[in-house]
């Protein structure tokens, strides 16, 4: 009998016990699975150049894409405002999915409501759902703002949010002056980064529309969709405080996705205050840390006379240099010595470890700005980001990546793949091997299939805990990224050299 109370086996060891192995062998007789030889043959073929060519010839099927849909980005960005409840108009299952997805990554509550449209609403429209729904949300959850976005169902039938919200206010679902910004976020356009942009613009438009901006010297900063937002936003605020900048972070989710355990469930915590959001129209400039999360929002900010600029996820030395220079340029504040010291420490660490990093090859996938920032840092370490892939990356992004590769001798032979998915990545890794894979939890399947060690630095991370609580931005964040890469390299090397009397001649104590 495999199970005993002294040592309770759960799934991983239990099913390797002889009783279960026998049982599974008996089950196989009923399965009609293909013969082993055929499976091996096809498995080998899926890793061949022939398969790669067929795989890249795909036109319609998407397999293991690395992107989500617009409303996820909308729910994420809305949660970074003071006491804001996301209200997603359309089918209710979608909202269950966004909440689960965010909770699984952050290991935190994620609150959002749905207008729960069903078949009758598909026929007659969802006006009643909006009217009743806003009243219920307002009464049950005491928000300061309700941010309305849409699922694809509501988009396909063409519900008009502006008119619906106006009607709901007429029917006193919420007070007439209650803040209900909205954005149409069709899932069949763009990805979660597009939804981030649309919802943020919707919120700003709600507060800024018709206002006369008076530039006051302050800076708006938009972090973009970021799984490391808890650590990153706090690091960003520290940097801005050290620089003495007057700033508003437009959508700061860092407290919302990091509430303490002290006996109280906080449905809302932190976030950009409503007042600050209103006043942000008077900022002199708006800086986006992720270009692809903010094209419409930046255009909108520019329409108020603000200077605008966008970066690509400020990781590493050059990425952080650009961040500090941009802040300095947009606010006139010099970069203080304290931050220069931090820069020196990061460079010092890179110099100490350079021999282990030089010439390492990488595959990187994720959101377009992350991939750019990450590849740039890899180049700085003497690494070669051979395969860079963003399912939600465009031709324009590919061109930017090529420019980046061309800027460094380590970029030779590197290629950016926009619009491709992780099944394409599998072919790349199988045919042109690299030393390390940087991505998210979905990458573990690539690690299993191609034995490429995976480093998790991108949303979503489901199977490792708490990484998002530490920053990857700034020089301090750069240190963490550096150590994460180095740990993986050293751990792999140790694993490779610990066979006693066989490989352990290289099991060096000091590396």
């Amino acid at each position, binding site marked *: 009998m495999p199970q005993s109370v002294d040592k*309770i086996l759960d799934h991983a060891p239990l099913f390797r016990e002889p009783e279960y192995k026998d049982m599974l062998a008996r089950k196989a007789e009923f399965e009609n699975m293909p013969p082993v030889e055929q499976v091996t043959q096809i498995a080998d073929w899926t890793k061949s150049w022939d398969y790669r060519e067929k795989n890249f010839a795909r036109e319609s099927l998407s397999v293991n894409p690395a992107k989500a849909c617009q409303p996820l980005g909308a729910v994420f960005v809305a949660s970074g405002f003071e006491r804001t409840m996301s209200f997603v108009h359309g*089918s209710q299952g979608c909202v269950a999915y966004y909440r689960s997805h965010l909770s699984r990554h952050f290991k935190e509550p994620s609150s959002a409501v749905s207008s729960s449209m069903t078949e009758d609403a598909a026929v007659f429209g969802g006006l009643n759902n909006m009217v009743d729904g806003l009243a219920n949300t307002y009464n049950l959850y005491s928000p300061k703002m309700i941010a309305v976005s849409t699922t694809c169902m509501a988009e396909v039938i063409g519900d008009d949010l502006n008119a619906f919200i106006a009607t709901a206010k007429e029917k006193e679902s919420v007070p007439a002056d209650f803040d209900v910004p909205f954005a149409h976020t069709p899932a069949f356009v763009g990805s979660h980064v597009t939804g981030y942009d649309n919802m943020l613009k919707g919120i700003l438009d709600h507060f800024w529309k018709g206002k006369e901006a008076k530039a006051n010297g302050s800076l708006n900063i938009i972090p973009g969709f970021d799984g490391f937002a808890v650590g990153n936003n706090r690091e960003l605020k520290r940097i801005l405080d050290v620089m003495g900048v007057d700033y508003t972070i437009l959508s700061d989710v860092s407290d919302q996705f990091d509430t303490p355990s002290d006996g109280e469930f906080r449905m809302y915590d932190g976030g950009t205050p409503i007042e600050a959001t209103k006043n942000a129209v008077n900022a002199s400039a708006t800086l986006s840390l992720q270009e692809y999360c903010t094209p419409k929002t930046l255009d909108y900010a520019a329409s108020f006379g603000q200077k605008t600029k966008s970066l690509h996820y400020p990781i590493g030395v050059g990425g952080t240099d650009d961040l500090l220079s941009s802040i300095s340029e947009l606010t006139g504040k010099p970069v203080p010595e304290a931050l220069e010291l931090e820069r020196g420490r990061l460079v010092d660490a890179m110099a100490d470890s350079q021999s282990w990093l030089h010439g390492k090859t990488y595959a990187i996938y994720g959101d377009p700005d992350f991939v750019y920032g990450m590849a740039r840092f890899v180049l700085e370490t003497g690494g070669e980001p051979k395969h860079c892939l963003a399912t939600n990356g465009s031709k324009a992004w590919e061109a930017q990546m090529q420019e980046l590769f061309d800027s460094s001798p380590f970029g030779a032979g590197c290629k950016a793949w926009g619009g491709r998915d992780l099944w394409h990545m599998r072919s790349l890794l199988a045919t042109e091997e690299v030393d390390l894979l940087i991505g998210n939890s979905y990458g573990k*399947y690539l690690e299993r299939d191609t034995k490429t060690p995976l480093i998790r630095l991108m949303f979503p991370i489901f199977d490792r805990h708490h990484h998002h609580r530490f920053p990857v931005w700034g020089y301090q964040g750069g240190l963490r990224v550096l150590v994460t890469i180095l740990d993986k390299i050293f751990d792999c090397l140790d694993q490779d050299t610990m066979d006693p009397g066989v490989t352990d001649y290289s099991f060096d104590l000091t590396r």
Partner: protein
Amino acid sequence: MSLDEGTINDPTLPERLIAEVLEAYPDKSRKRRQKHLSVSTTPDAEEKADGALSECDVKSNVKSIPGVMTIRGCAYAGSKGVVWGPIKDMVHISHGPVGCGQYSWSQRRNYYIGNTGVDSFVTMQFTSDFQERDIVFGGDKKLEKIIDEIDELFPLAKGISIQSECPIGLIGDDIEAVSRKKKKETGKTIVPVRCEGFRGVSQSLGHHIANDAIRDWVFNQEGAEDKFETTAYDVNVIGDYNIGGDAWSSRILLEEIGLRVVGNWSGDATLAEMERAPKAKLNLIHCYRSMNYICRYMEEKYNIPWVEYNFFGPSQIAASLRKIAALFDETIQANAERVIAKYQPLVDAILAKYKPRLEGKTVMLYVGGLRPRHVVNAYDDLGMVITGTGYEFAHSDDYQRTGHYVREGTLIYDDVTGYELERFIEGMRPDLVGSGIKEKYPVQKMGIPFRQMHSWDYSGPYHGYDGFAIFARDMDLAINNPVWGLFKAPWKKEAA
């Protein structure tokens, strides 16, 4: 039941909590919500004679109210996520925009043995990733192309199911026509499933639609395998999705009593196991809510009887083994007694170790369509007491069955809202809550131990005797972890 009168300090508390939460709603919604909340009452004589402990009478299986934070999902989740997704040697296309397939990718822990991407496809996300042009011009041509691409790149896939997302039914695509055409061309099973998320009121209709799709597109297909030698002991296990290996720790017991499991639906299942099902002698149904439809159909069409069973906790396992064995001959019945006796020392050891640590602890549950009642006796076996339970997507027959599991005075909540659940938990202060990922972190922040009862919180299996050991250990580690004592800072403690 181990519960004495003193365990519940205040028998009027559940009623008062219901009244309190209803206060918060606008009138219209209050009227609707109050029908879904109740306290279980004394069963009538007839029900009592039938073994009922209480009567759980709430309205169920109706639309959720907008804007209240329902915990429910949709028909797509019920079909792709629950019924079809675990069938391992088929490709399941999430047909529509990218999100549905992305968020449900690998999240139900349907364990399987296979070479993923080669002969098995469960933990992959296949999607048609609809773009605006697909909405405007329709997606049927794209779907045809997708099926061709799957056929080329995944030649060992035995079939394909098309899991419709919301837009499919709204833009008038004819996925049935595409399926028929492609089935002819490829010779493979192709199953269109009309599980658009706006259909029905929860996951439940998705289960039903998925069952109907098996009936219409898998059973009695031309060219399906028919050279199968049957025996008198052939059974199908229906409605075990092999979460964390549940179906395996169940199957081992059924084999031990001498039965031959010829199909497992749908955890670790293959298409062959689905096709062959009508040849079995008996259907054993675990998740009644999601698969009773196909059992009723097989009963009507092929004369295959079905019986509900419950492999959570030793009392129910023993009762179920006897109930199943009673439908076979004396050999099987003797085997069942032998198996029950064989595992008794393990059960005794588990209870000796964990019961003292868990006895009298109170539990509130909120899960899908089966577990809010099915796991109750597993807790009972450990001396724990269910003080509240409810379902996301049960029907009235589920609540009727619930009366056989929970005692009078239990708080019952159907399609509970985030607001209600938080208030109920805050008011009842149970020692443990069992629910889903969305509920986990709010509850833990309140300082109340929690276990995910959909995914087994990444543990499992929980079915069978081997699973009960893990279940007991997990409930203990959740409740008796020292972290719950660290919530209050020492200076706050002194002040209090």
